[in-house]
Structure formats: structure tokens, C-alpha cells
């Protein structure tokens, strides 16, 4: 996983509520057995019309937001299906950070497992960043994960909370499975006791 420290770039605002993973990654892009080619699928029906032509009015098709590294999103972003393809696609499109008031649980975990930072902020801060992101002159920002802060174009700084384990995994780009397997003995011991106590599960 790509380590995450300080990232500077363009933020795009997508303020709609309840943007689901069917919209983020439509079903026709779910037929692979690997992770490739999903950048084309992200927000496909909003980026492209039925004939496959670029929809010029969609924010991620417009300069400078076509190079966005940050999305400022509406509440409950990523709801619905567990499909991790949604996060793989966002990553392949170059998105490193999502900022919003709330995220769906599975999606939020999927982000963390793939080096995409989800930042949860209060409504006022999110709205302010969203407003700055809609103006090409102020849409540039910096996310400092070690310092847990967002530096905005108007000179202000917004701090954010992140669960320490999640932060460490992102900063170090940890292999989560490898890290857990260091607890192999504890898992084995737990499992043994557990199955003795619940023999119908053995």
C-alpha cells in the first residue's frame, strides 16, 4: 500500500448526499478478477453519456478538477454495496483523500485498506472546504496526515481526528495481513479456547 504523509493538490466538490457505490462504480466494471481498468469506471454514468462521450458539465471532467486529488463529498458517501472496486477506481483516478461529514462503514474501511484517507469533519468545516473547492482560484489544498490537519487556500487550517491504528497503517503503508499474522500465537490460543467452549463450532 502506498504510504501517505503530506499531499497537495486540487479538491473537487461533490456535495450530493448518499452517493452510493453503484454510482461510484457501476456494475459493468465489476466483472474482472483483478483490479485493473477501474479508473474508467469511476462515476462512469456521470462522466460519460450513453454514447461514451465526455459530459463536459461534470466537475471531474473540467479543468482544474480533472486532476483532483481530493473529493469533498456529501453525507453518507459510499453507501450501499461492499464493492471495493469503488475505492480501487478512485485510487486509480488519483484520488488520495475524501473529506465529508459521514461515510458508509464498509466503504470507509475499504478506503483505509487502500491508502485512501477518509477525513470526517463537522458540517461547517466541510461546507467551507466545499465552497473553496468550487472556485478554481481556491481549490488547492494540502492534507498533512502526520499533523492531522488540512491547510486551505484562504490560509486557514482545519484539524481532523483519525483512529491511531488507521493513521499508522496509512502513514507506513502497512501490509495489514502481515501485521496481524505477527499475532498468530494469540489467535491460535484464542481459537483453541473458543472452540473448546463452543464445541458445536469446531
Amino acid at each position, binding site marked *: 500500500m502506498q504510504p501517505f504523509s503530506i499531499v497537495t493538490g486540487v479538491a473537487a466538490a461533490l456535495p450530493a448526499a448518499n452517493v452510493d457505490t453503484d454510482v461510484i462504480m457501476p456494475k459493468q466494471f465489476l466483472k474482472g478478477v483483478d483490479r485493473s481498468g477501474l479508473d474508467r469506471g469511476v462515476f462512469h454514468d456521470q462522466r460519460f453519456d450513453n454514447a461514451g462521450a465526455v459530459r463536459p458539465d461534470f466537475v471531474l471532467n473540467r479543468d482544474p478538477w480533472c486532476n483532483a486529488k481530493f473529493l469533498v463529498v456529501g453525507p453518507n458517501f459510499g453507501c450501499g454495496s461492499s464493492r471495493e472496486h469503488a475505492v480501487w477506481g478512485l485510487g486509480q483516478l488519483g484520488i488520495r483523500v475524501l473529506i465529508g461529514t*459521514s461515510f458508509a*462503514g464498509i466503504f470507509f474501511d475499504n478506503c483505509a485498506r487502500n491508502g485512501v484517507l477518509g477525513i470526517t469533519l463537522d458540517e461547517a468545516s466541510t461546507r467551507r472546504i466545499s465552497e473553496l473547492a468550487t472556485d478554481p482560484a481556491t481549490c488547492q489544498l494540502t492534507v498533512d496526515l502526520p499533523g492531522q490537519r488540512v491547510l486551505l487556500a484562504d490560509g486557514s487550517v482545519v484539524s481532523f481526528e483519525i483512529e491511531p491504528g488507521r493513521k499508522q497503517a496509512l502513514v507506513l503503508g502497512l501490509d495489514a495481513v502481515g501485521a496481524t499474522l505477527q499475532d498468530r500465537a*494469540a489467535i491460535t490460543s484464542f481459537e483453541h479456547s473458543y472452540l473448546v467452549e463452543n464445541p458445536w463450532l469446531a
Partner: protein
Amino acid sequence: MTVNPADRYFDLRQRNPGGAPAHPARHRLQGGFTLARARTLYDKLVDSHTVRRLDDEGRQLLLYVDRTVLNEYTSPQAFTGLREAGRLVWRPGAALGTVDHVNPTAARRTAAMPDDGAARQAAYFAENCRDFGIELFDVLHPMQGIEHVVMPEMGLVLPGMVIAAGDSHTTTYGAFGALGFGIGTSDIEHYLATQTLTYGRLKTMRVTVHGDLGPGVRAKDIVMALIRTIGASGATGYAIEFAGAGISALGVEGRMTICNMAVECGARGAIMAPDDKVFAYIAGRPRAPEGDLWDRAVAQWRMLASDPEAVFDREVTLQADMIEPMVTWGTSPDQAAPIGASVPDPANESDPERRRDMERALSYMDLRPGTPLSDIVIQRAFIGSCTNARIEDLRDAAAVVRGRHVAAGVQAMVVPGSSSVRRQAESEGLDRIFLEAGFEWRQSGCSMCLAMNDDMLSPGERCASSTNRNFEGRQGASGRTHLMSPAMVAAAAVDGRLTDARRYMGAL
């Protein structure tokens, strides 16, 4: 590790109300923490599966997971990860594979897949299950079906379990007093390699359903009313425990419908304390415990309930007798209303962002404010999905269509939740009822719930659907979905428009 004596007393007291010998809560003590307070059922399930805490507060845990079920579309990259790292599956016997998302549901079953991508996924899935020693119900297997229908019918979902799987509707298993939740592909890989997940403890919400449902009102209507009440993110960050007479009165399959759809209001777990109905439902199923083990299991399962003094982070109550058959009018499951209502007017919404979302939804759905919901004409009717394609659902829908016929201009289909459900329905003659009424009687799979196979809406088509998501494009690009109970879908198919199914049930 030290143990708080007060907690130990409390724990033993709760687990042994009859004064029987103490059952050692060893694994919990190994976890190194229990708080001296009454606990919710959710807390008990998490505590009993905690291998160790990952932070000082016990918010982040290494959680032991009893079991998973795998499908062909969210698992391939997890297996590739194992292969690339040279890792094995920790406990292959604790996983089951079933092909459900991409397979066709045409009446005559073959191994053929609808497209090259689906064929590749099915083939790689078979290869992975074979190489890693995991049991597979492939598309020709007599027990093939939708994962969340197959697991309970096999007796693989037992009270007290933690089950995580690569599908958001894993919450279904809460109906058995098991904590089920969806995970992404990276976490599938983590589970397969370690039998654990790194897990963040959720807040708890109790949803108490008082009273009895009126005639012709179903479990689906309860959960749709809940989602409408608290919103599509109303339970984000929470595990819900459902309680109350309105839940106890339901059969196990109705309870599954409720836990299944709890994810549509953001819940990452939805549980109900198991009771005799649950034990009876499990008893005798192919993989259920037997004999002495069964008796011991049931004795322990009876203890699975929240302590009377347990405090929930949020309490919500619903009055069952006030709930009417529900339908969605928008593109989010919380955009729903009783069938007797009309399409709402965004102009009456004070919050500008919500107003914009409503306007966008009505534009996509091609609906005008003020239109009675019962005036909405459909072209398709779909009975299927892990939410509502079990035998009780099919019986309910068949009772509505018996002796009636699908309206002209409507294509209606029934996709049983599993091959076993299909056989059961045929043994009861339900297939004849549906066929004579003009429904297609198909093979099992996820089908047009998410349209990953060749079952899908054409652009602009409007569908009455017993499924769980009315998202834009969910059932096919530019297709329009109205969610409702199977009986309501059946009635809509007969009328050619959304309608109150109680008219066909002698309940109005």
C-alpha cells in the same frame, strides 16, 4: 491480566441465571477487559470474539470471525493476494463459496455464464475454492443460491457467531442472534489468512417495535418505515438491536428481511436476541449441531440477550400498528412513503441540499410531485433477492396472484432465493400459481437486484421490486426501481401500477 471481581460476578450471574456451574469466560478474560456494567447483546458478541485489544480504550480490536461466505465477484482479488504472498487459508472449513451474483437465472440451468467476465469469475472462483480447500456450491450444485439465503438454510448461521462476508447484506444473520457484517475484498483476504479482522467497536442503537402489524403489513414494511424515519445514514456507525413485541411476533424469515435491510440505514450490524422460533428454524438443517451438542448449544444460546440494565447509545421506537405497506418513490431507500400517500413536493423541503437531492431523484424517476403513488404505472415486476426471496416470501406473493393474471404490458419474474427454495416452492405448487398468472419462474441468483447478470431493466423501465436498493442504475442503466414487499410487487404486477396489496388479501 487482572479481572475486575465485580465484573466477574456480574458476568457469571448473567450467564447462569439458574445457578448452574459457572461457564468460564476464558476468552473474554484473555481479551483483558470487560467493564463492570450491564452489556448489550452486541457488546457480548464482540467481547466473546475479541482476541486482543488494539488500543487502550478497547475501541479497536482484533476480532475472531467464525465463518464467511464467498461469492465470485468480491473474492477473486483476495485469493490473488493470498497467492502472491504465498499464504494459506487459516480455516478452510469455516468458509463456503456460492456462485450467485453473475449467473443467469433462465429457467433451464446450465453452467454457461452470460458474458466472458462472468465466466472468468466463475472459473477463477472454482479454481480458488479447489486450491484452498473451500467447499463450493457452483451454479449446477443442488444447494446453489444467494449467499444469504443459502447460509441460513444450511444451518451455517448459528446464534452467538460473528460472520463477516464480502457482501453488505451479511447483516441478515442478525435474525439468528449472530453478528453479521459486510467487508471489502481486502478484509476478505485478511479474514481468509488470519480468521480475524481488525475491527472498530460500533455504537449501539435499540429499535423497539411495539404492537402488532396490521393485516397484510409485512416485515419489509417495518424496515422500510425505519429507514424512512431515521434516514439512509441514520444508523451509520451503529449496530442496531431490534426488540419488542412487533419483532417477536415475526417469523425468522421476516426477521431476516429486517436485519438484511438494516444496512440501508447504515447499520454495520443488526441483531435480534434468538428465541425458540430461531432454534426451531435451525434444528435439523444440514450443518446444524445434533444430539448432545445441540442441547448444549441451545442452552448457551438462550443466554444471548442484552442485560436488562444495558444502556444503548440511541433508542428508537416504532409503533407496528401505525405502519402501512411502504413503497419508495426516489433513488435512496429512505425516500419512501406509505402506498396511500403521494409523491412528495421538494418545495416543502426546507433544507436546500435535501431539496436538491429530492429534485434529482424525482427527475431520475420521472415523477411529478403530488402524483398518488398508486397512479404509478410499471413495466416490470421482480420478486427476488436476499431480502425477500425465501419460501415465506414466495407463499405470500403467490397468495396475492392466485387466480389472477399479470397486467398487460408488465413483464413479471420470480427468482427464488436458492435452488432449495425453488424446489420447496415447486413441491407446494407455487410455481404453477406464478406461471398461470403470467410470471416467469426462474432459477436462483441475485439476478435483477443488482443486474450483474443478463437480467436487467431497459433504460426508462419502471420496476416494482422486492429488493433492497433503488439506487440510480441499480437494476440497469436508467432503470427506475420502486422497493416494496413481495406481496406488494405481486399486487403491482396484477394491477400494472403500484397498489395496496391488502386489497388482494381481504385486509382492506
